[in-house]
């Protein structure tokens, strides 16, 4: 186990309960999708796993250090005053890595994220998809053991989104980090993950956990397979049931 939540509850003063009780355990190298409606506390769960928040009650634990965890947000979240390369270098700079090693790893990460030539560009000069790839490069430059993705492609068009999902699969095959992928897109969740955890509407609790019976990484053809369609159906139905129970 690389990270876990056990009966984790998050209450915000004045805003009530955001999450829980919710339990989730992440094994090394697996891809877990957390799906649920808006406002169910998916991002809160991710912040607990990242160690950026503490649960009001329950346990949030990680067996990897902070340097071994990376996070990608819905927006690229790049520093507008810094070049793409400087943005990717951020975790290494904060770690105190020397310049030549930083430059080598930044170039490698940009190449792995399929944006090898944008290092000198400022974020405003990048398209949405390129900026998100730079954000992905920053997340993988530390070669994390736990990669947390908070609806990273929600703001992108369908074509860019599909290409980036493929990129995440490819990046996963290179170093096999554990990935927790928050989304409200059922097809994306089923295509990318080895299991899908469905949350109830806020405050989110686990409504169902559905395994995706196909080895990773998956070919594009998987999207038209019977397993894919069947799993999407089961996840959608679990979501509908969770929504119905909440109503």
């Amino acid at each position: 186990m690389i990270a876990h939540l056990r009966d984790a509850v998050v209450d915000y003063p004045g805003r009530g309960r955001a999450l829980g009780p919710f339990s989730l355990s992440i094994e090394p190298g697996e891809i877990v999708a957390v799906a649920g409606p808006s406002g169910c506390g998916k991002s809160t769960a991710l912040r607990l796993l990242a160690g950026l928040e503490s649960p009001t009650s329950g346990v949030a634990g990680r067996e990897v250090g902070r340097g071994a965890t990376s996070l990608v947000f819905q927006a690229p979240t790049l520093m507008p005053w810094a070049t793409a390369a400087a943005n990717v270098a951020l975790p290494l700079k904060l770690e105190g890595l020397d310049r030549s090693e930083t430059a080598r790893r930044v170039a490698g990460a940009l190449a792995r994220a399929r944006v090898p030539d944008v290092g000198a560009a400022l974020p405003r000069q990048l398209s949405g998809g390129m900026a998100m790839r730079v954000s992905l490069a920053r997340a993988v430059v530390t070669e994390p053991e736990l990669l947390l993705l908070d609806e990273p492609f929600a703001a992108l068009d369908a074509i860019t989104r599909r290409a980036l999902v493929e990129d995440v699969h490819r990046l996963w095959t290179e170093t096999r980090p554990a990935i927790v992928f928050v989304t409200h897109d059922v097809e994306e969740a089923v295509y990318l993950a080895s299991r899908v955890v469905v949350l109830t509407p806020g405050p989110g609790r686990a409504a169902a956990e559905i395994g995706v019976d196909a080895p990773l990484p998956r070919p594009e053809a998987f999207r038209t397979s019977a397993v894919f369609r069947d799993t999407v159906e089961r996840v959608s139905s679990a979501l509908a049931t969770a929504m119905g129970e909440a109503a």
Partner: protein
Amino acid sequence: MRRLGDIAAPLALLAALCLGWEAACRLLRVPVYFLPPPSAVLAALWSRAPLLLESALNTLEMALLGLACASLIAMAVALAAGLHRLLESAVRPLAVALQVTPVVAIAPLVSIWAGIDHPERAVIGLAVVVAFFPILSGAMTGLKAVDPDLQRLFRLYGAGRLQTLFGLQLPSAAPFVVEGHRVAAGLAVIGAVVAEFVAGSGGTQGLAWRILEAGNRLRTAEMFAALLMLAILGLVVHWAMAAAEAWILRRWGAR
């Protein structure tokens, strides 16, 4: 075409006002010491241009020195306040009190502290006083205007307090800091002129002294010429700071 109109419209209005003013002075035979016509003002400006320009540069130099001192002090205070929330709570009310106190009321005190033989110190001091608040306020607001997700990333990657302050908060504050300096630059000129008036001596040889000197001799056209030079100085400072702001923000990466 629209840009040309934007430039031409105020110039046309100015020309019309000057023509009306000139005609009124001539037709109504207004005494020159009471209200000189624009032609007399331009003549005074022409004849005293070297002196007025030198005085304008004196005022500008002292205002810019005041701005530089205010910038150093205000940025240091804002950064310290950015490190300790309690310090910010302590500083803000005092800064606001300084801001709401009329600069004319503080001027005599600053003159005394500067010493009667050093009116230039009073001028710089008062420019510092008026320029301080906009820079401090802009910097303190900007240091808190950080993208919360970027802040989370810094925490996730184990950034220390100083790394976050200088690597994230200070660059994030850049647009606010630049805006604060733009406002402060205009105020520094006002502060310098007020201090020159209060000092009331020729020690500083600034534009306010030229206005006082001409007023004492009832040379109203020369007063207007100095006023005109003061307005030009204000506009130059405003345009220079606006251009610097646009350049810095472009470099900073704003869209």
